[in-house]
């Protein structure tokens, strides 16, 4: 059996109690007990005045800083923006270099296949296939579908905000356009290939692993009746439902002259280098 605990019942609060009891610096009491003369020296007065002035300046500086809207925060944001811009420009430079290399490859292939009729036919087949799989840009008439977020719904943590354009909505349009006979489709300038996922990460819609921001412009090049086929298809009916139920803005515009960019960076997964003739 343990001895009854005789310590102070609020011993656990002793820290707080001591804080409050010693609130005034014990040094004042000690100095008085020692019999220190106060204000005996002009240097003391100067030091005292300096400290008071320092306190006032400190408080004013802190107030000004807070009023200035926390420059630290602004600075961080500016730094982040700068880094984003820097990275974006470097990505653009790399993209430009990629485009140059692609056209160089094209040129080399053309010179390599510039011989007999069978070579010519092979070159034609290659460029036709390239347009189809999405390596090269495609131009022509087609249709442009613009999706934009509806008015924000009341916040509900349990389910995603359905007034936003979701990845499935973009998938719906892209699939509908392909079903209507589109030859080439791009979302916000990102060409859809057989290997382009359309998915969401958090609130962003990712197409080909690139995050896009609304409004989503889906450009499709295809036959003359692409627009009418799309309008008549099941995707359009579903879009209308999205429009009426969630306020998502859908805009379908047939265009005479559209350009869908190429993907450019398709890798050859199964092809191997052949024997040179």
């Amino acid at each position, binding site marked *: 059996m343990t001895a009854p605990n005789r310590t102070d019942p609020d011993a656990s609060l002793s820290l*707080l109690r001591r*804080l*409050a*009891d*010693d*609130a*005034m*610096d014990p*040094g*004042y*009491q000690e*100095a*008085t007990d020692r019999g*220190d003369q*106060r*204000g005996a020296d002009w240097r*003391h*007065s100067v*030091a*005292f*005045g*300096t*400290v*008071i*002035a*320092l*306190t*006032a*300046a*400190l*408080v*004013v*500086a*802190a107030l*000004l*800083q807070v009023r200035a809207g926390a*420059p*630290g925060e602004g*600075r961080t944001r500016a730094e982040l923006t700068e880094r984003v811009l820097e990275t974006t420009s470097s990505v653009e430079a790399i993209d430009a270099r990629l485009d140059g290399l692609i056209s160089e490859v094209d040129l080399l292939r053309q010179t390599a296949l510039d011989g007999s009729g069978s070579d010519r036919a092979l070159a034609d087949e290659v460029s036709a296939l390239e347009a189809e799989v999405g390596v090269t840009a495609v131009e022509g008439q087609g249709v442009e579908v613009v999706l934009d977020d509806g008015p924000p719904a009341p916040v509900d943590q349990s389910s995603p905000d359905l007034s936003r354009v979701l990845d499935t909505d973009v998938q719906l349009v892209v699939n509908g356009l392909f079903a209507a006979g589109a030859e080439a489709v791009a979302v916000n300038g990102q060409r859809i290939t057989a290997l382009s996922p359309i998915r969401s990460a958090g609130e962003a819609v990712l197409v080909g692993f690139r995050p896009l921001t609304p409004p989503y412009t889906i450009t499709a090049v295809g036959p003359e009746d692409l627009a009418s086929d799309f309008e008549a298809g099941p995707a359009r009916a579903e879009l209308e439902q999205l429009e009426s139920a969630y306020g998502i803005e859908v805009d379908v515009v047939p265009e005479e002259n559209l350009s869908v960019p190429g993907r450019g960076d398709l890798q050859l997964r199964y092809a191997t280098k052949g024997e040179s003739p």
Partner: protein
Amino acid sequence: MIALLALVVGVVLGLVLQPTIPAALQPYLPIAVVAALDAVFGASRALLDGIFNDRVFVISFIGNVFVAALVVFLGDQLGVGAQLSTGVVVVFSIRIFANAAAIRRHLFHA
């Protein structure tokens, strides 16, 4: 007298010079202000108790500000800067409250 004069000089200096705190010191400014306020409240109470001593005040002021900033700086280096800032602010607020209560009792006898 000196205190009032110094107060006015300090406010005017702060307003006129608009000192920009170096970015590296910015996290410590609020802590320093709270520590300084604590020293001032302690001094006011000592004044009312009749045991004010300017030497103790100057030393406690500088010590308070320096140690508070040092603790937060160490916390930053150890990755617990925010928590230690909270701790420092809590300790100083308790002291300020206690001193303010003592001053209130002195002034209003209530």
